[in-house]
């Protein structure tokens, strides 16, 4: 036997091994492909042998061929054979091949599960190691699920070599099987403090990777990481941790404050540039997160900028590059400190390294000012001329346009200069960005009215020289500018001096070689031109000239009628007919110009790109409803299943985390608003562009600067922008002189009083006034457009699934599936089979303790939910405690408004809301129903993964319990769509500000309500120092911070830039809630605009309706019946006539506005329930007749009931 084996291997000795293959390929340079196909045939033969050594040799060769681009997936099964060899040598070859070519689509991959499991538990650590390495490359969701538990065990292996690999691979497992994250997390956390530095580093690596995607879930680890950061000496670990902190600080500004000092120390002490760089980066992140409230971190900024300057000045290009990269981050928040290094950055533009030049360009974007824009752009234009590669030149081009157009052309003082820059850019050959230049030309010409005359003259010149631009149309993107040129000349033809000439230019035969869409614009706009020429000629009585021009059109238009482009053809033939008709009229000597020009009357205004999207859906319009009857089933059988499936999938993803999504959204929105408010480069759009537009004076009122005609305007390709730079400089000089004169005068006058005042005057940006009054029309938006984050959402983010709250205790069902021998009688899902994993016990014990504690306190309202909440709170407190050792935070900067109640949420699709309501209801059902359901309650924890399952279970239960009547939840049984409803009511309004408010009862406290007020800035000024004060009544008081008197107002924790709205919450305490109440109050604020700032006040009356004391509380029908029978309730009833809305809507209205929930609904009769914050039960029986509704109410307090019914009557009578 042994002899046979030796003999076999000697036979095979002369098989090609990898080296032979490589050598062979090198010797067959001419017919490589042929040689390789020969080799592959040989390999196929070898794979058929039984000898594993031969097989593995073949697989090894295949791996090499894979690198050369050959598909080797056909050998997947052989690779698995080699993987399962007993010898490490072969095994390693097998796993390497698998890691190079296996993927989720490889069908045989499921055969590997058991082999891998065996290797993982091999006594030889290298078998295990090689299996882990291989698995890390080809893990699939199935493998991850089946092997998660095995890998988790390996995390506590005795050998650090295995431990670190097991820890690292967990990240891949989490990605493929997110359910494993929570059970594995405690052990992963343990590994952060592993004695072996390699394992520790691996754990840090994994957690950093996780936290980078969903940082908020890892905030609670901050203290641990902080400890690691101050104790570790491993630079890899330090870099990772510091990077992680960079991701965490935006979520917790206090963390940043704590970090600054140790980071600064590291910056000073470390000699490793990589570490220094990351420290600087994170300090920058901290400063960005703090910039809202902390003005006195200039020392840290200075330090960063200094260090970065050293990096940029370094001879090492890498450091230079990174220095510039980090500089651009500082630029966003602290532009001033970067601007002082302009010299250095301009210097980098001359660097031979393209990456560095690009970085420097990025920086320039943020560094321009009115003063230096022309200078910078001039420098860039020189670079454009010098640039060789088209990519870099294109990059320069886009940058020039970006720099000039940023913030609504904020930095452009002379638009003639800008137009001429754009015209100069058209000379670029082979650029891809012709459409960009065109868009700019259009935008400027449309929005800057004063420049139209000049723009038209320039565009006419472009059209005249179109042959230069469109010389080789095929690969030339620049001809796009002709699109803009034609449109501008047509639309603003009244400014055209030599319209005839331009019209002729547009009618040249050469035009037909342009791309179709440009020709179409030509055709359309030559009619506009024609119309204005016609009018001109008719007015001056030159009838013949008018007829001539008509004749010209009729002669030349047919060339467009023959166009292959549909659009061009259609427009041309239509217009040709029109002009023929005009000609007829002209012959009859009928004046036609007025009518022709009427075709193009009116002005086209720019519309914001998102405008359509932001139009709110009007009440009662359902976009999803069929307009016609849906097509019959038989026709669409093929398509339907697909769409249904798709729909369900989407709904499912929503199912999982609707709340988190919204919170996240609100948080982001908040953050963005904050950032915008603090970003000096962010120009807020004015609230109502239309209004502003109306206010603007007409074109004739705008003084138009005389164009210096000494400049040869009509020489094509002549750079003119330089001329404008000079002109502008002269203008500025003059301006300055004038100012100085004025100042001197003033000085003379004032000399007696003020001596050294104003003597040191430097020209600041604000002093440069634009060449002429420029009126920039903002883009139009629908009136009540909402700030939406829709665009930010990425539904396909694979990391979204890992957004899991890790601080909640583990549930039974969450344990990792453990593979066992299959028992014949059970074929359960792996979940239910799994025996408890030891880790999950810990949190449970805690829970119990908590509960005991609570019992001791004698609280009867024992709620599982509370326990969980408390635990969360405790964790939060831990972090708070750790953070609070830092200096106390500056509170003004912290946005306070609760994300759940922001206005945008109200407009969220009803479906989501329903979802939440249902969930909440289910949670609460546990409370209301009797103690027997304690078991159930356990499952009612918020865990999302479980939620859906549980829901189904509990729903089933309900159905079996109350089969007789169909329970309706909150009146939304049918899928009938509900109109959008907002609970926000108007509080007060003046020209500056509008306040809307909503009152919510507080679940935790029986004598508190929360008033959420949305402040909307309606003016064009900045509103700040808002303070809200209310005259307390005996019964109702505003909760003020400790130490302030009853006459002090509460500051609103934000400022409002124009057009922005934000929400703040105020808590009120009450004694009695049976009556509605009104409180008088005042909002005082400071209006700041260009002219200065003024104090303003706005009085309001805050109306606490009785409904606002109610909390939507679901109730079982049996509990409801008992309640009614008990006889402790007072009764009262109302009847409202003239109700036309459907019962469904009616119930929804009551649910929404009065905080009720539906207990049961039978036909047009429903019972409803709600509870006040002080525990009053309110039961309603709502009946709908033909045109009327009667409501019988029962309540533990008769006053409350009658007040509630009155309010309801009011709501209903509005229907």
């Amino acid at each position, binding site marked *: 036997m042994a002899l046979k084996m030796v003999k076999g291997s000697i036979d095979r000795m002369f098989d090609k091994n990898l080296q032979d293959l490589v050598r062979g390929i090198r010797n067959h340079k001419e017919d490589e492909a042929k040689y390789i196909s020969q080799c592959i045939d040989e390999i196929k033969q070898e794979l058929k042998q039984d000898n594993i050594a031969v097989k593995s040799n073949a697989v090894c060769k295949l791996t090499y061929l894979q690198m050369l681009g050959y598909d080797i997936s056909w050998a997947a099964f052989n690779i698995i054979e080699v993987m399962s060899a007993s010898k490490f040598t072969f095994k390693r070859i097998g796993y390497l091949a698998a890691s190079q070519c296996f993927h989720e689509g490889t069908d045989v991959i499921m055969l590997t599960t058991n082999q891998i499991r065996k290797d993982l538990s091999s006594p030889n650590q290298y078998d295990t190691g090689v299996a882990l390495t291989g698995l890390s490359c080809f893990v699939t969701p199935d493998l991850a699920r089946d092997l998660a538990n095995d890998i988790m065990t390996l995390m506590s292996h005795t050998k650090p070599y295995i431990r670190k690999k097991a820890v690292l691979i967990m990240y891949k497992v989490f990605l493929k099987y997110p359910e494993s994250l929570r059970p594995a997390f405690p052990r992963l956390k343990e590994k952060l403090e592993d004695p072996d530095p390699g394992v520790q580093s691996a754990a840090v690596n994994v957690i950093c990777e996780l936290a980078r995607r969903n940082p908020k879930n890892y905030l609670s680890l901050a203290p641990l990481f902080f400890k690691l950061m101050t104790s570790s000496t491993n630079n890899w670990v330090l870099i990772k941790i510091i990077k992680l902190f960079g991701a965490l600080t935006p979520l917790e500004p206090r963390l940043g404050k704590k970090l600054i000092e140790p980071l600064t120390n590291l910056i000073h002490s470390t000699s490793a540039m990589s570490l220094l760089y990351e420290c600087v980066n994170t300090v920058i992140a901290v400063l960005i997160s703090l910039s809202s409230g902390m003005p006195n971190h200039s020392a840290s900024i200075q330090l960063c900028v200094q260090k970065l300057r050293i990096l940029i000045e370094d001879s090492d290009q890498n450091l230079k590059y990174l220095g510039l990269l980090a500089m651009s981050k500082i630029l966003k928040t602290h532009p001033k400190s970067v601007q002082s290094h302009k010299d250095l950055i301009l210097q980098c533009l001359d660097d031979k390294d393209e990456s*560095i030049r690009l970085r420097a360009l990025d920086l320039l974007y943020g560094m321009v000012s009115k003063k230096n824009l022309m200078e910078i752009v001039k420098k860039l234009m020189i670079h454009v001329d010098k640039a060789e590669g088209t990519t870099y030149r294109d990059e320069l081009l886009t940058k020039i346009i970006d720099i000039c157009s940023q913030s609504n052309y904020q930095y452009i003082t002379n638009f003639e200069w800008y137009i001429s820059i754009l015209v100069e850019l058209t000379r670029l050959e082979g650029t891809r960005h012709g459409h960009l230049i065109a868009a700019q030309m259009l935008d400027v010409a449309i929005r800057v009215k004063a420049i139209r005359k000049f723009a038209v003259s320039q565009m006419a010149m472009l059209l005249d020289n179109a042959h230069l631009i469109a010389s080789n149309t095929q690969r030339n993107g620049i001809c796009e500018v002709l699109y803009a040129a034609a449109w501008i000349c047509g639309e603003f033809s009244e400014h055209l001096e030599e319209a005839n000439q331009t019209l002729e230019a547009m009618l040249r035969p050469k035009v037909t070689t342009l791309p179709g869409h440009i020709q179409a614009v030509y055709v359309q706009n030559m009619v506009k031109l024609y119309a204005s020429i016609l009018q001109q000629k008719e007015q001056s009585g030159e009838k013949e000239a008018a007829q001539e021009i008509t004749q010209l059109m009729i002669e030349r238009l047919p060339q467009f009628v023959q166009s292959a482009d549909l659009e061009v053809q259609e427009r041309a033939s239509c217009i040709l007919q029109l002009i023929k008709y005009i000609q007829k009229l002209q012959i009859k000597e009928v004046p036609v110009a007025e009518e022709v020009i009427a075709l193009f009357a009116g002005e086209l205004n720019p519309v914001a790109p998102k405008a359509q999207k932001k139009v709110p859906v009007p009440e009662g319009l359902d976009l999803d409803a069929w307009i016609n009857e849906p097509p019959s089933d038989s026709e669409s059988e093929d398509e339907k299943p697909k769409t249904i499936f798709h729909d369900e999938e989407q709904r499912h993803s929503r199912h999982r985390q609707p709340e988190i999504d919204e919170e996240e959204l609100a948080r982001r929105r908040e953050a963005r608003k904050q950032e915008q408010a603090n970003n000096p480069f962010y120009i807020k759009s004015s609230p109502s562009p239309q209004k502003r537009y109306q206010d603007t004076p007409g074109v004739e009122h705008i003084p138009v600067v005389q164009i210096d005609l000494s400049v040869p305007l009509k020489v094509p390709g002549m750079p003119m922008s330089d001329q404008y730079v000079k002109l502008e400089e002269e203008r500025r000089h003059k301006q300055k002189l004038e100012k100085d004169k004025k100042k001197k005068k003033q000085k003379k006058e004032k000399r007696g009083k003020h001596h050294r005042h104003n003597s040191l005057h430097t020209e600041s940006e604000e002093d440069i006034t634009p060449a002429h009054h420029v009126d920039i029309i903002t883009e139009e938006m629908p009136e009540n457009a909402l700030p939406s984050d829709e665009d930010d959402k990425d539904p396909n983010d694979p990391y979204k699934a890992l957004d899991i709250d890790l601080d909640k205790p583990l549930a039974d069902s969450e344990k990792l599936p453990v593979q066992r021998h299959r028992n014949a009688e059970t074929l359960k899902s792996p979940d239910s089979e799994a025996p408890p994993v030891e880790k999950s016990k810990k949190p449970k014990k805690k829970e119990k303790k908590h509960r005991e504690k609570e019992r001791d306190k004698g609280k009867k309202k024992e709620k599982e939910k509370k326990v969980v909440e408390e635990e969360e709170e405790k964790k939060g407190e831990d972090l708070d405690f750790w953070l609070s050792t830092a200096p106390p935070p500056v509170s003004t900067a912290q946005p306070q408004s609760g994300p759940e109640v922001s206005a945008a949420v109200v407009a969220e699709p009803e479906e989501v809301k329903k979802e939440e309501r249902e969930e909440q209801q289910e949670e609460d059902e546990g409370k209301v129903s009797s103690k027997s359901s304690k078991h159930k309650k356990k499952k009612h924890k918020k865990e999302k993964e479980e939620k859906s399952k549980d829901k189904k279970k509990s729903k089933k239960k309900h159905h079996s319990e109350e089969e007789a009547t169909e329970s309706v939840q909150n009146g939304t049984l049918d899928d009938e769509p509900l109109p959008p409803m907002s609970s926000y009511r108007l509080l007060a309004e003046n020209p500056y500000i509008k306040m809307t408010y909503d009152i919510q009862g507080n679940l935790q406290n029986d004598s508190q309500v929360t008033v959420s007020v949305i402040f909307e800035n309606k003016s064009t000024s900045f509103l700040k120092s808002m303070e809200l004060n209310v005259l307390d009544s005996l019964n109702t008081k505003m909760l003020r911070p400790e130490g302030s008197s009853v006459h002090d107002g509460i500051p609103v924790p934000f400022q409002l830039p124009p057009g922005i709205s934000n929400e703040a919450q105020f808590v009120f305490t009450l004694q009695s809630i049976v009556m509605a109440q009104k409180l008088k109050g005042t909002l005082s604020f400071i209006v700041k605009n260009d002219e200065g700032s003024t104090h303003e006040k706005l009085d309001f009356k805050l109306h606490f309706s009785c409904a606002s004391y109610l909390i939507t509380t679901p109730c079982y029908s049996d509990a409801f019946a008992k309640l009614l029978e008990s006889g402790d309730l007072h009764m009262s009833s109302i009847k409202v006539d003239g109700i036309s809305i459907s019962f469904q809507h009616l119930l929804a209205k009551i649910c929404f506005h009065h905080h009720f929930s539906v207990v049961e609904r039978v036909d047009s009769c429903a019972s409803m329930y709600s509870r006040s914050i002080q525990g009053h039960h309110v039961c309603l029986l709502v009946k709908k007749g033909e045109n009327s509704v009667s409501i019988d109410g029962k309540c533990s307090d008769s006053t409350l009931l009658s007040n509630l019914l009155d309010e309801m009557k009011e709501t209903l009578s509005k229907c």
Partner: protein
Amino acid sequence: MIKAILIFNNHGKPRLSKFYQRYSEDTQQQIIRETFHLVSKRDENVCNFLEGGLLIGGSDNKLIYRHYATLYFVFCVDSSESELGILDLIQVFVETLDKCFENVCELDLIFHVDKVHNILAEMVMGGMVLETNMNEIVTQIDAQNKLEKSEAGLAGAPARAVSAVKNMNLPEIPRNINIGDISIKVPNLPTFK
């Protein structure tokens, strides 16, 4: 995360390709070509970072590369990796190769790509950095080689003899394509622990 590790020579011939994301073989070749195209046209003394190619994922990614004599070592990484750290990692990788192959040259990589893969596997696993300590890596590699040798035992000896003979018969293998300046340290970059 490291998205891909590529080694190719001055002519763009791949010497090692390791992708930590699934791409089809064709796409892999395209990526190698594109990366070579990007990297090879850069001068010697420009920075070693490149904002990603078009094929391999988007704006978050960077190419970090080093050029040693005839070979380019390119790492494609996302923003969670420190740029300078990866540069050091490449250095560690090359130095480890130098130790394991005793004066590594391009030929070693050509004929022993499997060994290079094994060394790499001890440094980077599934796109995450596993070990940065060179001594530790070399120790593990040596131990595995020893294990391999002991497994080969009797049967291995003749095979080794044959391959020695094969190599002897081929005098045309140039031995002098040495990565001479393998131990070049990046100026101003203290070596990384």
